[in-house]
C-alpha cells in the first residue's frame, strides 16, 4: 500500500512542521518572558539589599572611630542587619561570612571602586546567594570624598527568589506544552483538510486505473486542490469517452467478424452437404471438370474450417466461451485425441496413467490436436507427446525434431493469422489454430507457451491447473 504510506508521510511531515514552528515560538516567547521576569525579580532583590545596606552603613559608619579596633569593627558589624562582614585593612569582624567565601577578585574590585558592587554566587547547587560589597567613604574637612578603609560585605540568600523563578519556569513549561499540543491539534486538522482531497484524488485515480472510467471528484471551493479535482474530472471524462469509443470500435469489429462468419456458415452448410456427391462423381467427369470438382471440394472444406475457427475465436472475444469441466484421466484423453485422428503411428507418447484433472474434454482435445497437428505438419519426426505432473497442475508437452521456431517468430506464434514467412503458401490450418489453443488453455486457468529444445525442435507446453489425483 504505497499510497497509504505516502498519505501518512505527508501528514507526519505537516504535523512535524507545525510542531517545530510552534516549539520555536513557544521557546522564544516563554524564554524571553522568563528571562525578563527573572531579571526583574533579581533586580528587585538586589536593589532592596543594596538600599538597606547603604542606608545602614551611612547611618552607622560615622560612629566608627578610625582606625577602628577589633571591638569597634564587631560593634559596627552587629549594628548592620543580615549576614555581614566588616573589614579594615587586615582586620575583620568576627561575625559574618568567612573570608574564604569572598573571592579575592571581588574584594579587589570593591576596594578599587567607590560604588556598591554585587555578584551572584552559589553556596551549593540549590542555594544561590547575592554577594554585595562596598567601601565606606567619608568627606574630609575640605569636602573631598575619600575612602575610610572600611569595607562591608553582605551575603543575601536568593532561595525565596529562586523558588519564585522556578515557579515561573514551571509555568512557562506548562504553557509551552499546552501551546505545543494545541499546535499539533491544529496541524492535524489542517493536515486532514488538506489530505482529505488528496486521499479522494488518490482513490479516484486508483479507480481510473482499475478501469472505472466514470469516477469523478466533487469539486469543493476554489483553491488549488479544487482546481486539481476539476482537471482530474476533465481528464477522466476525456479518457472515458476515448476508451468507450475504442471499446465500441473493437466490439463492432469483433461483432462484424462474428456476423460475417455466421453469414458464411449457411451457404457453407449447403456446399459442405453436397461436395461429397461432387467428389464421388469425379470418375465419370471429363478430366478438367474432375480437377475443378476436387478443387472446389477441398477449398470448401478449408473455408468451412476457417469459418468454424473464426466463430470459435469470436466466442472467446465475446466472452461467451463456456467451460464444461469434468474429471478426466488426462493420459486417456490425450491418447483418444491422437487415436481419433489416426496419428498413433506417427506420434510417440509418454503418458503415465492416473493423472486426473478437471478439464473440458472437448477443449483439451482442440488444444492437443492442434499442437500435435502442427508438429506433424511443420516439424520433423519423431513427434513426442509427454505428460507429467507438477506442483501446480499437469503439464502436456508436444515437441518435434525439426529445426524449431526462429527467435523472431516465437513472440508471434499465438497471433491470429500470423505467418512466419509472408511469402509462404497458405498452409493447411486456418491460421487461428494456435490462437484458439491458447484461448482454450487460458479458459482453463492454464497456459500455453512456445519454445525450442536446446537440441533443436519446437516445444509447446500446456499447463493445466487443478490436478485431482
Amino acid at each position, binding site marked *: 500500500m504505497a499510497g497509504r504510506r505516502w498519505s501518512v508521510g505527508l501528514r507526519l511531515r505537516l504535523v512535524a512542521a507545525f510542531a517545530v514552528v510552534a516549539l520555536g515560538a513557544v521557546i522564544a516567547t516563554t524564554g524571553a518572558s522568563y528571562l525578563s521576569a527573572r531579571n526583574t525579580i533579581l533586580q528587585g532583590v538586589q536593589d532592596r539589599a543594596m538600599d538597606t545596606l547603604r542606608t545602614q552603613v551611612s547611618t552607622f559608619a560615622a560612629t566608627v572611630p578610625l582606625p577602628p579596633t577589633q571591638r569597634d569593627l564587631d560593634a559596627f558589624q552587629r549594628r548592620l542587619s543580615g549576614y555581614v562582614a566588616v573589614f579594615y585593612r587586615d582586620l575583620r569582624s568576627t561575625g559574618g561570612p568567612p573570608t574564604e567565601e569572598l573571592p579575592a577578585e571581588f574584594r579587589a574590585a570593591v576596594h578599587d571602586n567607590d560604588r556598591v558592587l554585587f555578584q551572584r554566587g552559589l553556596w551549593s547547587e540549590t542555594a544561590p546567594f547575592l554577594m554585595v560589597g562596598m567601601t565606606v567613604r567619608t568627606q574630609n574637612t575640605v569636602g573631598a570624598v575619600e575612602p575610610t578603609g572600611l569595607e562591608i560585605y553582605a551575603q543575601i540568600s536568593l532561595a525565596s527568589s529562586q523558588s519564585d523563578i522556578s515557579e515561573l519556569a514551571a509555568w512557562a513549561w506548562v504553557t509551552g506544552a499546552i501551546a505545543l499540543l494545541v499546535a499539533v491539534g491544529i496541524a492535524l486538522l489542517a493536515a486532514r483538510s488538506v489530505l482529505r482531497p488528496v486521499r479522494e484524488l488518490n482513490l479516484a485515480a486508483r479507480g481510473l486505473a482499475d478501469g472505472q472510467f466514470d469516477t469523478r471528484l466533487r469539486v469543493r471551493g476554489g483553491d488549488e486542490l479544487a482546481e486539481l479535482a476539476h482537471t482530474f474530472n476533465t481528464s477522466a471524462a476525456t479518457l472515458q469517452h476515448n476508451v468507450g469509443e475504442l471499446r465500441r470500435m473493437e466490439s463492432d469489429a469483433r461483432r462484424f467478424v462474428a456476423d460475417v462468419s*455466421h453469414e458464411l*456458415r*449457411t*451457404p*457453407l*452448410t*449447403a*456446399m*459442405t*452437404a*453436397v461436395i*461429397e*456427391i461432387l467428389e*464421388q462423381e469425379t470418375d465419370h467427369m471429363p478430366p478438367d471438370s474432375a480437377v475443378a470438382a476436387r478443387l472446389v471440394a477441398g477449398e470448401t472444406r478449408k473455408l*468451412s474450417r476457417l*469459418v*468454424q475457427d473464426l*466463430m470459435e475465436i469470436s*466466442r472467446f472475444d465475446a466472452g*461467451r*466461451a*463456456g467451460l*464444461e469441466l*469434468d*474429471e478426466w484421466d488426462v493420459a486417456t484423453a490425450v491418447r*483418444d*485425441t491422437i*487415436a*481419433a485422428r489416426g496419428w498413433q503411428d506417427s506420434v510417440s507418447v509418454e503418458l503415465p496413467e492416473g493423472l486426473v484433472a*478437471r478439464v473440458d*474434454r*472437448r477443449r483439451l*482435445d482442440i488444444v492437443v490436436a492442434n499442437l500435435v497437428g502442427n508438429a506433424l505438419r511443420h516439424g520433423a519426426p519423431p513427434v513426442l507427446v509427454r505428460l507429467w505432473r507438477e506442483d501446480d497442475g499437469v503439464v502436456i508437452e508436444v515437441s518435434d525434431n525439426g529445426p524449431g521456431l526462429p527467435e523472431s517468430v516465437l513472440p508471434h506464434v499465438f497471433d491470429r493469422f500470423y505467418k512466419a514467412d509472408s511469402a509462404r503458401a497458405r498452409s493447411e490450418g486456418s491460421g487461428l489454430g494456435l490462437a484458439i489453443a491458447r484461448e482454450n488453455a487460458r479458459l482453463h486457468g492454464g497456459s500455453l507457451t512456445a519454445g525450442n529444445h536446446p537440441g533443436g525442435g519446437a516445444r509447446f507446453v500446456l499447463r493445466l491447473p487443478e490436478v*485431482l489425483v
Partner: protein
Amino acid sequence: MVVQQTWIMGRVAIVLVVEDDRAVREALQLSLRRQGHDVHVADSGEQGLAFLREQRPDLVLVDLMLPGIDGFETCRRIRAEGDLPIIVLTARSDDFDVVAGLEAGADDYVVKPVEPRVLDARIRAVLRRAASEQQTSDEHFGDLVVDRTALVVTKSGEPVPLTPTELKLLLELTRTPGRVLSRQQLLSAVWEHDYLGDSRLVDACVQRLRSKIEDDPASPRHVRTVRGFGYRFDRV
C-alpha cells in the same frame, strides 16, 4: 450407382428436414437421399408440425434458427406429442443454444456446416433403437419395472413413455446397477459418439429421464449423479 437405403424396422427411414434456407434445405435433401434416407422437407416450424400431423417420420432434423416458431419451440411441440427422435441443426455452437436445444427435447445436435458422413452417423445412431435382449423376467427396481424383451418401462404399473434415446440410456444404466458409468461411456454406448463427446448430451438426457421415472427429479433415488465421475443407477 446403387444407393444403399437405410432400413429401419424393415423399411426406409423417413427423415423430415425443417430448414428455412432454401440452399441448405435442398443440399441436405440431396445429401441425405444419397445416404439412403427418405427425405421430406419443410421450410418453417409451422410447416414441419403440419407435416407431422399427416405423416409420422422416423426422425426430425430441425434447424434452431427458424422464422415464426423457432427450432426450440418446434422441438418442444414435437416432444409434447410423443417420442419422435429429434436432431437439432445449429448454426451456432454457442453453449446456450446447444443446452437450450437439448432441454427442448433434442436427442442429439450437429453444428453447421456439418460433414454429410457425420450427420449420417448421428442419424443412424439415433435411429438404432435399443435392441431386445434375452431376459427371462422383468427387472424390478422399487416401483420401476424394466422389461428388456418388450422394451417397456412401467412405474407403479403405469407405462412410462420414453423416447428411444431415453430408453437406451435407461437400459444402459440398469445393466449394471450400483456401478458408476462415466459420461464418455454413456456417450459411446447410447449416442455412439466414438470420441470428443459432448457430455451435455448425457446431462440433458439424464434430466429428462429423471423427470419421467423419479418421484422427485430434484432429489433422484434411481439415477444418481456421482460428482466428478458420472452417473450410477441405484436399485433403491
